[in-house]
Structures are given as C-alpha cells and as structure tokens.
C-alpha cells in the first residue's frame, strides 16, 4: 500500500528502504488516482449544480420558494409605507385639510371655520376610512407584487396562471391584516402547485392609536376639550402631546412601546375675534 507520507519515507532512505525514485513513483500513482477521483466528483457536482439550478442567481429550486412568501414580503413593504403616510397625515394618505405647523402640514380631523362653536367630525369612522385609504394606496403595488412574482417564476421555467385578485385591509388590535386572495398556479416539470391565500399581517399599533384619536376627537367635538393629561395617566402606554397654535390644537399621539406617532389637528371653539 502506498504510503501517503512519501516525504518521511524519503528521509528514511538512508536506512535502506526503497530509493526515493521508486517511492516517488509509487506515491505518484496513488496521488494521481486520488486526484482523478476528486476531480470527477468536482465536475459532477458543478454539472449537477448548473443542471439543477438553471438560471441566474438562484440557489434554491422554485419548489423551495413559496410565491406566497414572495408576495407577502412585497405586500408588507407596501402596507408599511401606507401606514407611515397615514400616521403622518392624520388618517389620510394625502392630507386634505391642513394647518402648517413647524414646517409640517397637520391634517384636521375635526374642524369648523366659525369661532366659539364645537367642530364637526370631518373624518368619522376613522378606522374604516384608514382601511379604505390603505386599500386604495396599495392597489397598484399589489399588482406589481404579483407581476414581479410571476416574472420571477417564469424566469425559472414555471408557467404561472393567475386568477382575479380580491383583497381587503383590516385594522385590528396590534396589527394590520391584509386579506389577499388570488388564485395562482405554478406549473413546472415537477408538477403543478396552486396558491390562493396571500394574506399577511403587519405588526402595527395603528388600530390602538386610532382608538385614542377618536376619543380625542369625540371629546373635542362635544366639549371643545379633551383631558389628555389624565388620559395619559390612566393609559401610560400612550403619550399625548398637544400644542395650541393659531386657534387650532395640534395633537400627537405616540405609542410608547413602538414609537409610532399619529399626528392630527383640531379646530374647535376657537376664541377668535
């Protein structure tokens, strides 16, 4: 049997073991064999890798990549962007009636132009309104998400069949649920797989923030006042800031745990000449 440690054998040749040349030749053969075997294995692996992956950049087969996950990530991003806009613009994607304060436009949720009168709640059922706003805002994005998903899988050699899409957004305690349904069929050599539910939940305190905001608005519209400091005392998880500016009240409701902030304005019982 060849000894792998040929160099140590060579150092022993003075002890009368085989000449270096003979040991080397015998060692060489073994090595070559080994190298050949290893080489074959390597080539086979490479070939096998390319054969199996088939396409740019993918290290996993489509059967391991769920289109649902693909879409969910995409939808989550879109919804989070919408939520950020909603929080910033007082319940709307684009604020409609605002006051400029500290360089920002603060959206009115309760407003009356006249002095001394309590305001009108101009955005009733705020949760439902926000749900609609998000639905409208993400509509195009949802389509884009599915388009990207389809392209991705088609590039991998799948046939993608899609049905009609239906979706809704629900503001729920602690999260926003997107109920997204679309029939998607992936057909490939390994078979056909169907997907329908692309719903996703995005953690967000917006539902709870809106509850607090509604309390404030209802207080302002009925009493021209909201005892925000007492509210914060009883519910310390919310920080409520208020500034009086130009006969309006600028409110900011902050969820202490997440840092999310809902900004809006109210004009009620203005003591204007």
């Amino acid at each position: 049997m060849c000894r792998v440690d040929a160099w140590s054998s060579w150092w022993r040749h003075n002890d009368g073991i085989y000449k270096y040349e003979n040991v080397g030749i015998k060692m060489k053969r073994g090595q070559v064999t080994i190298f050949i075997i290893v080489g074959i294995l390597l080539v086979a692996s490479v070939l096998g890798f390319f054969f199996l992956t088939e396409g740019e950049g993918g290290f996993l087969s489509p059967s391991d990549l769920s289109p649902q996950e693909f879409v969910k990530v995409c939808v989550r991003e879109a919804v989070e962007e919408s939520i950020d806009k909603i929080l910033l613009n007082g319940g709307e994607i684009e604020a409609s009636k605002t006051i400029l304060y500290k360089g920002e436009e603060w959206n009115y949720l309760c407003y009356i132009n006249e002095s001394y009168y309590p305001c009108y709640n101009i955005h009733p059922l705020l949760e439902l309104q926000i749900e609609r706003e998000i639905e409208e805002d993400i509509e195009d994005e949802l389509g884009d998400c599915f388009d990207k998903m389809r392209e991705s899988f088609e590039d991998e050699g799948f046939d993608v069949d899609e049905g009609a899409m239906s979706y809704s957004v629900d503001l729920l305690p602690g999260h926003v649920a997107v109920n997204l349904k679309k029939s998607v069929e992936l057909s490939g050599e390994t078979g056909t797989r169907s997907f329908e539910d692309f719903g996703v939940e995005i953690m967000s305190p917006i539902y709870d923030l809106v509850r607090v905001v509604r309390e404030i608005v209802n207080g302002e519209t009925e009493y021209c006042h909201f005892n925000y400091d007492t509210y914060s005392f009883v519910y310390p998880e919310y920080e409520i800031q208020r500034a009086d500016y130009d006969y309006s009240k600028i409110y900011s409701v902050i969820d202490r745990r997440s840092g999310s902030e809902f900004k809006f304005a109210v004009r009620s019982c203005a003591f204007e000449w």
Partner: protein
Amino acid sequence: METKKKVRSRKVVAGVEMMLMMVSLFAFCYFIGLSDVVFSLVSAEEEEEFSFEEWWNRTQRSHLFRNETRTTYEISSLAEGFGCCFISKDEQRCGTSAPDNCVADSPFAEGLLCKDTAFCRKGCCYDEASGIYDRNVLSVDCLTEWVKDPNCNLPGAALGCCILGAETSYETEGQCQVDSFVLALGDSGGVDWRKDVNEAGCFLLATEQKEGACVLEGGACKFVTGESCHNYGGDFFEDYLCTSPELNTSCEMTRQTQCVDGKDGVYFVDSCGNPANIYNVWKVDDVDYWDRVAELEDLCGSRDIDGGNANSEECGNCNRFAGSICSSADEDNFNVDIGDFYCRDTSCLFKGESYRNGESWCVYDGAIGEGNDVVGSRHWRYVCSQGVVVVEPCADYRNQICIQADEFDVNGKSVPFRDSACVANNWRECINLNSEEDGTTACESALNCRIETVDVADYFEFDICLPQYPAGFSLSEERSMTTASKLCGMGTQTCTVVREGEKWGRGCEYVANEDCLTSVFAEEMNDFCRGLGDCGGSVNIVGEYSENYDVTKDGVTDSSLFLSSSWVDKLKDLAKPVPGQFAEVENYSVFLEAAGIWGPSTSLNASADDTGDKMQDFASGLSGVSMAISFLTSGSVLGMTVIEGGLLGSSPGLSAFGGAAMGASIGMLVGTMLANYLELSPGGTMLMAVGGALIGAVVGWYGLGAGLASIGPVGWAIIIIGVILMILGSLFGAGDCDDIEIEFECKAWEAPVGGADCEKCNDDPLKPCSEYRCESLGAACELMNVGTDNELCGAMEDDGKAPVLSPQYDVISDGIIYDDVSSSGFSLNPSGGGCIDAYTPLMFGVVTSELAHCKFDFEATDFESLGQDLGGNAYLINHTTVFSLPDPSHGQSQGYNWTGDLSLFVRCQDVYGILNDGFYEIEMCVNEGEDISAPRVVKTTPKNDELVGVVVGEVELEIVTNELATCWWSERDIIHSEMENEMYCGDSFGAPSDVLGYVCNSTLLLGEQRQNYTYYIRCGDQPWLNDSERNFNLRSFVYEVRRPESVIVIDSVEPGTDFQTSTDMTTVELRIATSGGGEEHFCSYSFSGYENMIELFETGGNRMHTQIFNRPAGRNEIFVECEDETGDFARGVTEFEIIHDSSIPQVSRIWQDQSFVNLILNEGAECKYSLDGCKFVWDEGVSIGEGKEFEFGVVKGKKYFIRCKDVHGNVPSGCLVELVAT
C-alpha cells in the same frame, strides 16, 4: 294867572317824577339783582375768541372717538342678508356668510344659523358591526349609518367593560367583539362585555383577573387567564408561573426583565417570554420566587407608597399612583442591576418644587386679576406627565384663564393634589353688563367680573363693571384694533371742574370736582382704562411701559396731570408674577345648575369680590359732569337775552330825578363795565355798580337840572360816597373763573417703538412665543417663519427711511376728491369745485409706505404734541378718519374765530420711530354763508317705526339733529309754533352729545291702546337768533311708533310628557314655540329657575326655538323665557321624566314538552341560544323568535345556553337560562 300856570306845571312834573322814581326804584333793584348776570354777560361779550382748534377739541375729541357704551359681543346675531352656507367659495363648510360668497349650487339658508339648518345639522355616524359611533358628523360625511342624534345615544354606543384575558378595555360591545375575536378569545367562547361596569371599575377589574400557567402540549406554557387557557385548550394552573418545577414545562428562569402592558411594574420574564414575578435583584435565582405568583405584600418595596420604588436599581415594584412606572433603562441611561427596565420616577421638579405625576398647576406672566394682567400675557397650565413638565397654554389674548385647586375633598377627607384647568374668560359679559338695566347688580354675581369704583371728586364718581382679567387685542389685525379703539374709548371721560368768583375776594373758588385737577384723576382713570383691556398706560410682559392716554385741560394737553413716575414704576412691577397668586376658582355651581349639568361640582370658593357701597350705574355716574354742564349752560344763555332787552335809553324832557334814575342806570352799567375791566368779584361788581349809580344819579340830577356846576354840598357828599364805594369795590377782584374741563382720553395700547426686546419672546421653551406675545414687545416685532420649525419672534428690518404718505384713494366721501396731490399733501375739494358743505360727514385717509402711527393737529408742532391720532393709536398702513365740519358762521356768532379754511398738519412715525420729513398738509375749506337750511333729524332712539311693548305707556324719545336746534312735537302736523310739546334740547353750541349731532329729548305719551302712533316733529336752528332769522322745518319729521298686535306668548314647550329610552343618556330636543309680540324672539332656558337663564344661540327670526341636551334618566324641569325686541317677555316651564328601562328580560315560566321547550318572559324580547356557552356573539346565536312566548325544538342530552334582548337592547351579560334537554 302866571302863578296858577307855574303851580299846574309843577304838579305835572312832580307826578311824572314820582312815576319815574317808582319805576326807577324797581328798575334799579332789578339791575342790582342782576349785577352777577350782567357781570357775566359783559364777560361773555368780551370773551376771548376761540380758534377752530379749540372748537375741535371741545367737539371732535370728545365725540368723534367716543365709544358707544353699548358694545355687544353676541355671536348669534347675523348681519342682514347673511345666513348659513354649506360650502363657501373659500371651501369652508357650514359657516355664516353672505349669499354671494356661497358656491352657486350650495344650499344657503338666509337668516339662519347653521345649527338650525337641515343640511348642516350634526348627527351620529356609526357602524354597528365594528361598534364605532362618532358624534357631531354631517350626514354627507357619513358613508355608513347616520342618525340625527349628535350625541350618539344609541344602544350600541353604550360603553362597558370588555374583558380581554388579563386586560380590560372600556368600549362598546361591538368593539369588544372585534377585540375578542382578534385575540382569539372569542374563537369558541363568547364575548365578555359588562355593561354595568364604568371606566374606573373596568380599570380595576384588570387587576383582579386571575392568571396562571396554561400548560399546552409538548411542555409549552403561556401565562394567561383561565378563560384564555380554555380557549387555547391547555391545562390551567391558577397562580402558578410557567417556570414552576411542578409543571415541568419547557420554560426556564432567566435574568431578563420587561414591562407588561396594563401593569406598572418591571417583571421577570422566562425563557418562553412569559412574565413572572416583579423584578427583585435578590430573588433572581430563587426557585421559589419563580414558582408561584407572589403576594403583593411579599413583593419588594411594597411599603414604598410615597415613591413607588422610583429609580431603584434592585426592585421593579413600580406604581404610577405613587410616582413610578416601568421604563427602559437603556433609553434613560439608568444602571439597573439586572435586566433592561426599571421604575422611572414620574414626578417632576419645576423651579425647586416637586410635583407628582398627574398634577398640574398654573403659571402666569405677571400679576393677574383686578385688571392687572399685562399686555401680551397669557395664562399657562403646566402638567407633570410621567416625569416631564408639559406646557398647555390657555387660549391667547387671555380668552382663557388658568384656575387652580390644591386640594380635593374625597369622602370628607382633604387630599392634597394640585389640579388646574384653562377655563373661558367671561370678560365680554362684564363689558356688556354696563349697558343693561341693573347691570352693576348683575355684575356682582357674574363670572370673572368685578365692580370698579372710580371716585375722584365730589361729583366725579361712578361704578362700572369690568372684567377681572381683561382681554388682549391683536396688535396687528385691523378689525381687532378697531374694536380695541372702541372698547378703550369707553374709558375716555371728562371731568368738569366748576368754579365761580369769590364773593368777597379777587380769586375763584371751586364749586365742584376740584380733585380732578390732581394726579388722582389720571391714576383712577388709567386704572379704569387698563381694566377695559389692552388700553391706556400699561406695560408688556417685560415691563416696558407705553403711555397710550392723554389728559387735557380745556383741550390742551397738560402733562402735569399725567401719571407720576412712581405710579408708572408700580405699573412696571405688574410684569412680575406674584408668588402664590392664582386666578380665583369662582362659584360655577349656579351656572352648572342652570345648564342642567349634573354631577359633583369641583371645590368651590365663594367669590371674594368686594361690592362698593355706591351703586350708581354708569350713566348716572356722569351726573357730576351733567351738573357742571348745567352751570355752564344756564348762565350764558340767560344773560344774552337780558342784555339785549336790558338797556334803557335816555329820554329827553325828564326831570332831574328821572335823569337821576336814568343816570343811576347808566352809572350802574358804567360801574359794572369798570368792574369787569378790573376783573372784580360779584361783590365788588355790586359795590362798583351802586357807587357808579350814585354818582350817575347825582350827575344826572344836576346835569338835567341846574347843571353840573351847581352841584351843592349834598350832591358832592353823594358823589364822594359813591367814589368811596367804587374804590372799596375795586378791592374785590374776581379773576377768570370759567369752568375747567379735564379730559382723560383712553387709547388702545400700542407697543413701544423699535424691536430691541423681540427676541426675549424666544427665551423660554416652556412659554412658546405667539403673535400676540411677540408684537407686544415692540412695534417692530413680528413673528417670522410662521408655520415652520423655525418660528421666532424677531425685529422687522429697519430700512432707515421715513414713511412716505399719499392719499387713500379708495376711501373718500362721495362728491369729494383728493386734489392738488403732492408729496407734501393734498386738498379735499368737492368734485364740482368750491368748498365743502357744513355738517357733511367727511371721510378721507392717508396711506403710508410702511406701518406707521400717524397723528395730526391744526398747528405744526412736534409729533408728541400733535393732538389727534389719524386712524387710531396703532401702526397701520391705511389711516382713515371721518368727521363733520360746522358752519363757520355759526361758530363766529358763538365767539369762534374761524373763516372756514382749514389745514391739518400730519406726521407719521414708523415702527422704529423715524418720522416723515416736515408735515404732510391736508387742506380744505367749508362753505360759509347764509344758513338757509333748517335742521335735519339724523337719528332717533328708539328707531323710527320701531315696536314698543304692548303695555308701554310712554316712549322716551331722543332725536339727533345735524345742527344745534330747538324742537317741538305734536300729534298733529302743524307749524312749530303751534305744537304743544317742546323737546328738551340741552346741548350747547360746539358740544354735541352725540357723534352725529345735537340731542333733544322728550317723552311721548302713548294714549289709548292702539297699534300705530304718529308724531310730527319740527325744529328750528340757531336758537340764539330771533325767530325771524332762524330756519324752521316747513315739513315735519314723521316719527312713528308701533305696538305688536299682541304680547309675545309661548305656545308650547316640548317635551312635555314622559318617555322611555333604551340608553343611559338621552338626546332631548327642547322645542319652544312662540307667537305674537314683535318681530324678533329670543328665548333662554334654565334647569334651576328664572334667576339664571342661558340664552339660546339664535338670530331672533324663528318662532320655533330649539336646543339639544344630553340628559340622563330621571325627572327634568326646564324653565323657559322668551323675549321680543320691545322687552315684553313670556315665561313657561316643562316637566318630564326620562325613563330608562335597564332591566333585562326575566323568565316567567319555562318547561319542556317532549322535544320542545316552552319559554315565557315577563316582557317582549328577542331570544337566541348557543350550544357553546353563554358568552356567544349575538349575531351568531340561533334565533328562537321574538315576543313574550317561545317554543323551540331541542335534542336530548344537549345543553342550551339561552339569552334574550328586550326592545331597549337590555340583554344579560351571561345567560338568561341554561338548560339540558331531557
């Protein structure tokens, strides 16, 4: 024969002489008696000539800018033509506007307030499924269900306590269903919503929820309530922690901590993420501490009730009520021994004083109350919120005040806790009370009002109702500045110091109001002035003083009567807050009761207002002045008449005695004239007159008789006596004893010149700057970068240039033009040439190239000495003024030396005090000529054709004529001389008491009861002339008075009957129907009685008056009172009970008959059942019908959970009945 002739002629002469003597005796005495009058008459003749300026000072200063004392701030009044517009052109919704400002297709209701229209009515918008109910929503904004009830008193809107595992939430049942479903609590179970628990109870209920370890398959564990565990399908171990060795779960002890929602403390957390016991550094490795839920008393720091373990490194037993709450140690840079959370101290330290979390207190910019609030100041409310001092400024311009209470009464025990609130400042009502009958009486009990007693002199004292905390005015907004000028003008008053010559001396003695010549006058008047608002001599928040008043003596500024420097220093001290001073918490209970707001009132202190003993109202407070005026008036008018008729001519042929009598008369007049020349007192005048008469008599006697050379010893004796008397008389001087008019002119406050203090507004982050605050610091201060993050108070750029003046072309009276316009002035001329007609209101103005304060006068003098403000005491761009000019000929006859040509010298200074070069001259001339126009009646009070009360028997009529006149009235249209009734016209020339002219008064008697009364009034001008030289109305001014057909009555008040409701609170609409009476009906209501009525917001045009209340169940009594414009009123009352049926349906009988169950209830209801449990979602239950009797099929062995809801929505939180079918 010759002797007989001599005797006969002597008899005749004697007879004539005796007759003359007798006549002369009377005449002589008459003249002696009138010596005072003659003295003053002669003085009037030779009276100093007045210039136009002096005329102006007497008239325009006191009347042009004189405030109308009745200033109302009713927000419910509408200008004619205005109404409610749904959408205006500037996209405002539901606001009051003119019709042409309303979008074409938008609904518009003229004469109505928006609250009374259907299209702007507020209602409730709701979504029953989600349990959301929003108040005060327009129907167009609601995309779901909308009802007219703005308070959302609907069954589904009732709030109750929703149990969500270990937490609770005070919300509607619908919301509870959503939350329960989401938290998987309602998956198979029901919704635990408890209607009978209030918010405080709900909060406490959370602490009572029993939690424990819920062991799931595979050794997983969650620390939840039993109910939640049941839903998870796990095994519940109450009071066990998931790390309990007995439970053998996969959860292990850790050294981590966390905050837990709904709880104050810092909790250990196990490896599964479940909370364990309160963080205690000494027990982190204690297995027993990780076994069971620890008892409260066994927790660390449980005895720290004052600090709540705030800032403890070792213990996490926080307590928000004791002053601590769980918070991140990393964020707060706190070194806690174990974990990342600690108990953060939630108390606050503010200016060396500690405040507990939740406490709030008031902070002020200076002294407050008693009219001492300084310009630019506002009240502030500071709150300690979780360790951070948060500032809540009360409304600017002091429209809100901050009140503070330091203790609360809790079950009879006084608990120290500082609480404050910003409440509305009732300052408007205080001002309005001055124009009401018994206003000062009402002032005593009015909120935030006080009675200010101005007591300067014997006849110059009055009480006035003023705000405790006077409001501020915008220092840049024109409309506000106009209102400010009017309001401050109330403080412009004149005190007349009355003097007369000393009887036995050469000087004058004061008869009335001498003290008005002291500094007390300015001090008291300035306090009055400051008490109205931002008026007069006052300081701003940094203590900078600004004068803003004027004291004149007979029309000329007299700085010796101004406030002393020590007094001004006292005013400057007002800019420093007074330690311990707070706005008084007044007695609101009366008003709360009247408004029907039930519930415990906050701690109330009785008002500490002092009421003066003198309860003169404002009008009668001027009585001292009126008396002084009557002194002035009666002397001169009477004297003039006597002068013209008093002179006797010398008649030839009279005997010596007749001559003596005549001589005596002449001598007396001579003596009087001499006395006047020497300025003697009345006593001295009399002596001179008598002495002169004696001399004159002797001279006359001898002069007409034997001749002056024949004066014998007796005659010489008389002459000597006469001379002695005259010499004695000359020793008693009188001097000039005219009345002195001291006027205090109260002006709107103006900021000091320049902008050196602007940046002081930005110094304190706890007192954010505002426009009002900034502008009060200097005339050049303005708020910059408005709306940006860099909003700051700064000084306007000083361009170093003087303001440039030009005519205000868009403001000019009709028929007048700006003529000869140049850089140095212009003329005001009629467009057709010539001069301006007298008594024509002349309106014109000047525009400056930058904000400037403009003044003018009739003499070119320095800016400070210019007597009049052009456009007001403010920095403006447009400076407008209006006044009317009298007929120069009228003035001349009254001693005024004025030909009708007039020049106004105008100067303006910008905000940095830079004056325009030279004077800007405005020239005009007034037509002088023969007055051929009769007086015109320009105003009547009450207005012509106005309604008076049904039972009113007389009308106090006041008319105003454009020139001084005397007037008469009759019920027949006849010439003035035949009119039976003469009006009282007390004004004198140059001193009209109305801004439009001269006032005459009379009482019109309304005889028999009828609906229309017509009176004819005629006047004649120039009362100082003979009738033949005067102009009388050839046609009568017709004045009509009407009565309503009937007195105002209240036809109905609703609701008037009891009714049932399904909610705790009910929206009730009070509806009052009125009829009869005048054209405007205003109603008010009260829940406590007629003493304190609350006015409805309305315009007066409606006959149906409504008001919406939010009332709890119970008995209600509402008092109503309705009044029309005549003052007639009617009262009514309504009583009703709101019955709240809160009882749930009860089972009367239940039995099973084979496979059917029969159920009978005590009231009609809808019933449903579930097989899963009592807390099922109502909509998901199986219906078994509606009514009082039910029958439904059952399956043997199954358990039925039945609930029933009556028509009012009353349903038990649990089951009505549970039965197992047999």
